[in-house]
């Protein structure tokens, strides 16, 4: 625990330093400060994850906070680990990425300051065991991320996105406050342990259910569950790429953390809550990947795919909750460990993908798929990293993404023997839909990767793009390497996920309970390694075969059309078109087309974009409706003093009548 706080201290020191040094140094200072700080934080986490130890600390604060307990148990350590690692990558990458803003009179120093604020707030959140302090730190986290999002607030869309994000975060914190207060009023204490003692027993079932729903909604907004996900596709594109990588890779995971925490504190809620949670998770995964596969903006697509992955994690949690509800500790353990592992993996490859997108944006100044293309040859490192990341996020072996998904699938296969047809239906449908989501994500990411990096440039301007500096490629390549490593070392992932999962399920289950699929994972590791080897072998064979005959280079075979341009390539839109046609019923889409006319048509335009149903149907009308109602009242302050007095007198007379005769 001391080491942990030393790390935090280093972070804070870095914040101060980064303000003082001159602009061109700030990034460097941040990176150099974050590295040792992050490592210092990581060490106790790894220790606790491997040994299952917990390091408590507690101090007395004044009213109304009361006693504040900090606890670094494996559950907290897991998240702290994810955050610390994420912060290291983010700061190194950011030090390179922010170079493009130097000397433009932008608030770079504030940016780095809030970045480190965000790191610290996120690092502290998991260890805090007091509701009120938790809320405070939570809000600090939201605020600092808000300031990071509005870094380029002179742009209209960034500004709007930032405000939207702030409001969503505020709604979430209101929900959290309400949920916690409901609990605190009953338990009379803000300490999670006390809440646990009061509610774990299952007394106050309705209260704890209410609280769970409120809190799950609040955390769900942060995590990006349906239908409250719509801030992600707004805020992620708006923010600078390392920030969006951090937010999408790490910050939204704290929403998941909150939900798991609530399961730990309140015990498993009523069945119907578990079922609806699972259903929502499945829907999030589906809607997320559907929208993702139709976006033209790389970062929007990645944001939607975050919704999808959060959905997958949610499926794991849901299955685990069902397992707990049906008294099947194995399923619970598997579900939670699968969710945790997928969470860890997602923090790696989603960060990686956002960093890749950032690199592309930095060099080409566009995020629109229809202008990009052929970047692999110009940016091979970024391209490789992005390819590996895409493979990993599709959950394909031999990458880490597969491990998490596999365990989640497995936990569902385990549902047999637990009685209840409803459970079977839930399990099979989420099983199948998870598979479907996986397959669609293959579509989504082949599309993303190949339209950005494959083929030829669709726009003249981007042919000048070159590889980004090492400060940016290094983190990406390291993360990619970690993705592969996770794929070939699944047992290690399982190892570090077991203690946290055991704690969430109530700490009663010994970690060994998941021994059942140690050997599957072992075989998987073998096959993954084998796949890599075999690929190498075949490639070597190919090279050997071709060594004698030199390769003839020619143009792409245009099927008889011998004057191809890069414009006739398949674009992102056309790539996803067949699929969009299939899922037309559930996706609103608006098309603008100016068809070809005449014998020699000059210009024909066709463009379409997918509208996010939940945003257009739920979120926007809500906000606009409120604003409309409020503006309807704007006759009150009309500048005429007589009216002002009139209001007062009317109120006076009414209240007098009420007081006397009422």
């Amino acid at each position, binding site marked *: 625990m001391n080491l942990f706080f030393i790390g935090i201290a280093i972070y804070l020191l870095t914040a101060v330093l980064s303000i003082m040094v001159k602009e061109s140094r700030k990034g460097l200072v941040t990176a150099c400060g974050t590295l040792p700080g992050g490592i210092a934080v990581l060490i106790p986490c790894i220790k606790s994850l491997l040994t299952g130890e917990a390091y408590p600390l507690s101090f007395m604060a004044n009213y109304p906070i009361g006693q504040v307990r900090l606890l670094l148990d494996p559950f907290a350590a897991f998240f702290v680990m994810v955050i610390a690692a994420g912060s290291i990558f983010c700061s190194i990458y950011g030090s390179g990425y922010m170079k493009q803003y130097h000397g433009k009179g932008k608030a770079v120093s504030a940016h780095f300051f809030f970045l480190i604020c965000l790191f610290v707030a996120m690092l502290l959140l998991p260890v805090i065991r007091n509701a009120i302090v938790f809320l405070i730190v939570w809000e600090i986290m939201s605020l600092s991320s808000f300031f990071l999002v509005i870094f380029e607030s002179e742009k209209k869309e960034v500004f709007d996105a930032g405000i939207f994000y702030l409001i969503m975060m505020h709604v979430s914190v209101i929900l959290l406050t309400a949920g916690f207060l409901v609990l605190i009023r009953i338990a009379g204490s803000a300490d999670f342990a006390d809440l646990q003692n009061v509610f774990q027993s299952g007394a106050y079932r309705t209260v704890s259910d209410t609280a769970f729903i409120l809190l799950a909604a609040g955390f769900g907004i942060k995590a990006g569950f349906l239908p409250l996900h719509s801030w992600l596709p707004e805020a992620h594109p708006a923010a600078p790429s390392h920030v969006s990588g951090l937010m999408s890779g790490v910050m939204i995971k704290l929403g998941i953390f909150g939900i798991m925490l609530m399961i730990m504190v309140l015990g498993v809620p009523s069945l119907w809550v578990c079922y609806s949670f699972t259903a929502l998770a499945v829907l999030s995964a589906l809607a997320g990947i559907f929208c993702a596969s139709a976006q033209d903006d790389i970062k929007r697509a990645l944001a939607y795919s975050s919704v999808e992955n959060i959905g997958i994690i949610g499926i794991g949690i849901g299955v685990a909750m069902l397992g707990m509800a049906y008294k099947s500790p194995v399923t619970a353990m598997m579900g939670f460990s699968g969710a945790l592992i997928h969470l860890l993996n997602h923090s790696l490859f989603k960060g990686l993908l956002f960093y890749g997108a950032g690199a592309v944006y930095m060099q080409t100044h566009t995020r629109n798929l229809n202008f990009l*293309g052929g970047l*692999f*040859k110009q940016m091979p490192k970024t*391209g490789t990293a992005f390819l590996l990341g895409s*493979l990993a996020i*599709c959950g*394909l*072996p031999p990458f880490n993404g597969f491990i998490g998904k*596999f365990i989640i*699938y*497995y936990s569902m*296969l385990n549902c*047999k*023997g637990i009685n209840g*047809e409803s459970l*079977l*239906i839930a*399990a*099979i449908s989420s*099983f199948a*839909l998870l*598979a*479907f989501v*996986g*397959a669609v994500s293959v*579509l989504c990411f*082949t599309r993303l990767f*190949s*339209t950005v*990096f*494959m*083929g030829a440039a669709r726009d003249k301007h981007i042919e000048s793009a070159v590889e980004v500096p090492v400060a940016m490629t290094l983190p990406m390549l390291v993360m990619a390497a970690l993705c592969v490593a996770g794929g070939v070392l699944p047992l290690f992932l399982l190892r570090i996920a077991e203690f946290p999962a055991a704690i969430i399920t109530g700490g009663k289950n010994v970690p060994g309970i998941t021994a059942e*699929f140690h050997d599957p994972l072992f*075989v*998987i590791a073998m*096959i993954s390694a084998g796949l890599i080897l*075999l690929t190498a072998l*075949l*490639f070597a*064979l190919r090279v050997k*075969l071709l060594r*004698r*005959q030199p*390769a*003839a*280079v*020619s*143009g*792409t*075979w245009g*099927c008889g059309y011998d004057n191809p341009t890069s414009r006739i*390539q*398949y674009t992102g839109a*056309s*790539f*996803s*078109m*067949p*699929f969009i046609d*299939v899922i037309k019923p559930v996706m609103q889409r608006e098309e603008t087309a100016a068809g070809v006319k005449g014998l020699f048509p000059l210009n024909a335009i066709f463009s379409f974009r997918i509208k996010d149903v939940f945003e257009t149907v739920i979120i926007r009308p809500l906000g606009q409706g409120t604003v409309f109602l409020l503006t309807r009242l704007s006759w009150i302050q009309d500048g005429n003093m007589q009216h002002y007095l009139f209001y007062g007198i009317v109120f006076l007379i009414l209240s007098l009548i009420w007081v006397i005769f009422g």
Partner: protein
Amino acid sequence: MKIIISVLMIIFFPFLISGTIRRVKSVWGGRKGPSLIQPFFDFSRLMKKSEVISRTVSPVFMVAPSASLAATICAAALVPMAGKSAILSFNGDFIMFCYLLAFGKFMLVVSAMDTGSSFEGMGSSREVTFSALAEPGFFIIMGSFAWISGCKSFESIFQGIYNSGPASGLLILLSIIGLFIMLLTEGGRLPVDDPETHLELTMIHEVMVLDNSGPDLGFIMYGAALKVFLIASLIASLVTPAGIGFVPGLIIFGVFVGVEAVFIGFLESVMARMRMTHIPQFVFMITALAIIIFFIVMMELGKAL
């Protein structure tokens, strides 16, 4: 012993299958047709050839075919063949089977997009779309089987499915149909895809590899044939009754794979390719069947509880 036989099968059967299919079609068409092992000759010829590569391609284009073939071979190691025994078998291996095939597909699609040809883009987008639609059905089938048989791996499921109550026959029948549609889809055969048409616009799988040549093309051809063989052998080992000895099992298996090959050839000779817009419905039939299967399973389990 078993392993050696399986390896041999993995090496030779793909060629035989595609050979058979061609032979059947040509016979049906009244021609004599090439010998059964003609595809093998094609393969070895391709191995000797040099390659022609497009200007636009990047290193990914070179690696993709090898990676894709490697993935398919790894998948092959999971499929139970002779006597319902796979080279490698573990709980949940069918999940990995699907994802390995998906990996291969991913690489092929990416390399196809690398050429920058719009036709290949067309093919790859269709490929990923249709295989995405095939996925859930397969998982529902396997999941239901896993529950009713209480096992979690190809091998044990195909063993267990036989002594899982009265409905097992029906289950097997339905799942065979489902898997066969999957075979047509994944293998890129009629009516989903016409590998021998001359119009690139109507191709799916073939059009993706227009720019591959030499060993790469060979890898891809072999990989495709192997994929067909794998799904075919899934069906075959599903129908092989449990508990009969190794050799009879082997025979039944071989025979049935052959039967499937002939049947595919027969289909391709009598059917025309569907309209692209109709293919999703056809592919989705897998899921429809799978749902029926699931409900049967649920009834069975319901009885059990």
